[in-house]
């Protein structure tokens, strides 16, 4: 196993672990904002996962998905915030 293989394997596990931890935060909240932040972070981490996975599988086509994911995660978060603010306005 070359260094890069080792590095990617470790990275995948580390990122996977992080994702699980963040997901735990998403599950427990407590506030809805916590969950949204967690969701945002999840998608950001997914980008990292995709990048490493692309190296592991020697294909580059996945990276574009990362760009989109970044854009959309942001939009999603904004939308949630938009919702939350409207909900609090009287």
């Amino acid at each position, binding site marked *: 196993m070359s260094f890069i293989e080792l590095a990617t394997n470790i990275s*995948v*596990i580390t990122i*996977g*672990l992080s*994702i*699980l931890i963040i*997901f735990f935060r*998403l*599950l427990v*909240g407590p506030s*809805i904002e916590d*969950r*949204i932040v967690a*969701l945002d972070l*999840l*998608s950001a981490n*997914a980008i990292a*996962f*995709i990048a490493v*996975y692309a190296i592991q599988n020697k*294909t580059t*086509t*996945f990276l*574009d*998905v990362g760009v*989109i*994911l970044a854009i*959309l*995660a942001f*939009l*999603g978060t904004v*939308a*949630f915030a*938009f*919702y*939350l603010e*409207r*909900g609090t306005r009287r």
Partner: protein
Amino acid sequence: MLNLILIGFAASAIAPFIYKPLKNYFGWIAATFPLYIFLSFISRYNQIAGGDIIRETFNWIPSLGINFTFLLDGLSLTFVLIITLIGVVVFLYAGAYMKDYDHADRFFVYIGIFMTSMVGMVISDNMITLFVFWELTSITSYLLIGFNHHKEKSRKYALQALLVTGGGGLALMAGFILLSQISGSLEISSLYDLNETIRNAPTYTAIVILVLIGAFTKSAQFPFQFWLPNAMEAPTPVSAYLHSATMVKAGIYLIARMNHSLGGSALWQDTILIVGAITMLFAATLSFNQMDLKKLLAYSTLSVLGTLTMLLGIGSKLAIKAFFIYIIAHSLYKGTLFLVAGILDHETGTRDVSKLGGLRKHLPITTVIAALASFSMMGIIPLVGFIGKETVYSAILEVDYWGLFLLSISVIANALIVMITILVGFKPFWGKLLSTPKAPHEAPIKMWLGPLALAVLGLLMGIFPNVFIGRLLDQSAISIISEKLELPIKLWHGFNFVLLMSFVTLLLGVGVYYFRTKILHIAQNLKIKNIFKPSEWYEFLLNGMMSFAKLQTKVLQNGYLRNYIIFILVTAVSLASLALFKVENLFRITPDFSITFYESAIVIIIVLATFMVIISDSRLKSIVGIGVVGFTMGIIFIIHSAPDLALTTFAIETLTVILFVLVLYKLPKFLPFSKSYSRLRDIIIASSVGLFMTLVVLYITSIELQSELKKFYTDNSVPGGKGRNVVNVILVDFRAIDTLGEITVLAIAAIGVFALLKLKLEDRNK
């Protein structure tokens, strides 16, 4: 003959256009139409009486063996002549009678179509064509019974008649189809030599029952007789024409017509005989406490129809002879008396016998007509009714074993008919003058001319029976029992037992008339209740059907969406499992259990997120959860080499979130709606759905996929599709039309959202 039928329908259709301007002469004009048909047919009288059979065929639906095959033999000619002759009288009469009715033009349309259909039916040789006309008579009868449709009773009884005869019609159709399967043809004439084969066919019993149900319902035989008295809601010309002279005889005609091919078995003969006899007696007794002119006549008609059926059941030569004479005689006098009842109703404003009396001075012609017809009906020499009754008695006497018994009930029934005759034909005219709602006045000529002609004809036929009936009799009999009668008709048979019986009948009838209130009283004291009330069975069936229908609909169509869903899912899963679990090695599939760390992470996330959505008490939490599920799906797609799918999934998920966000804050909080029982039920259903799908996936993925498509797409993507993204080439080239449909869906959805949000109409049905 097809021309005549077509002319008949066409003539009926123009009635509304010419009725108004010609209202005052309409009876005369209308009468020319049956007269024309009558003349057309009577011109063939000699030919038919000479033994010819006229056959005409016009293709209709040859591939189904359905054609307009018309066959004119003695039997059908007899019926055609009765139908059209009485038609002339009734049409003329109706011209005057219906004058004060609204929309009398519609009346003539119906009755015109009716008459044409009736003619068509009796001359049809093709069973389906016959059935077509048969049903047309039912429908026109419905429209005519309900002619006074502002009255609830009219509507109700019209429907009753239609349902009973229509239901019988359906049975008849099934019988016909079964019958045609034996001969391979729908032509009745093709069955003539097959009597033996038919009787030995396994479907014979079914055919007999089905055909007889058709006949019995139409001819109001027990236990279907109840619709006929109720049909008296119709205007009187209808009662006279349809419900005494013609339509109700269609069933009798059918039995006679099919006797040739279906008859000869005990099943056929006995059924007809017994049902006929029961109807004869039962109907007559039902007349006992009636005071309505038309009801009285209706019961007597029923009794006669029973007698006619019984005669066919006896099936001897003499019986057939009696059948013919009686059917003609009855058509003449009963038609007449109905029309007389109509005159009384029309001129005095009541049909209640107890309110009528002493009208002879005011209605002298009617009195004469009534007397003539009544004598015939009572069987008094020298009217045709006398010959009829004599022959009937003689035919009954011939029956083995229980001839005497049949004769005695026949005498009782006829005595009751005598009583009815006195009530209808004499009581209103003789004795003390009773006051009536309208000042009595003789009817106009259009109303009495026809009845008078019929009454006189009854007299002439009695005196010269052979001139009018005799010649056709033999030919008609051939059609029924395939042999000639060779029995001459005579008015006078000498003093014999039968004459004695006629006399007894008359005496008994008069006696019953005088003591009828007392008899009724005794009967009531004895608590003799009529236990046979088929009309109640009808009500029971109808109400039962309605209650069941309501119950069923309330249970099934109960308004709960989830119940509908459960129906669908449970059906799907149970039936599909039924098929799937036949697989022997289904549970021996060994899936690939190798799992990497991130794969297990994915499973954990997607499963927990799913449960988060399910158990969540807040909408937003659910949305977050479903977002996680969606994003995880995207990751699964990436891992398994589907970047385009992942892109799309992410995009769609985000858009869905935006949508929810825009929509949701107006929606209420989740409420804990469901009970734990229903939750348990839903969990069971949900688990079975999930389990089924899992099994299917496991099973299929354990099989190798044989597909040529995968290779074709990658091979042709660059040279043919000019693209390296095979998925995209599939979308915009190989399967571009899918995408065209897909974007159409999107466009429609957008229009829908737009319209839903912007268009807010007032709710009219609030």
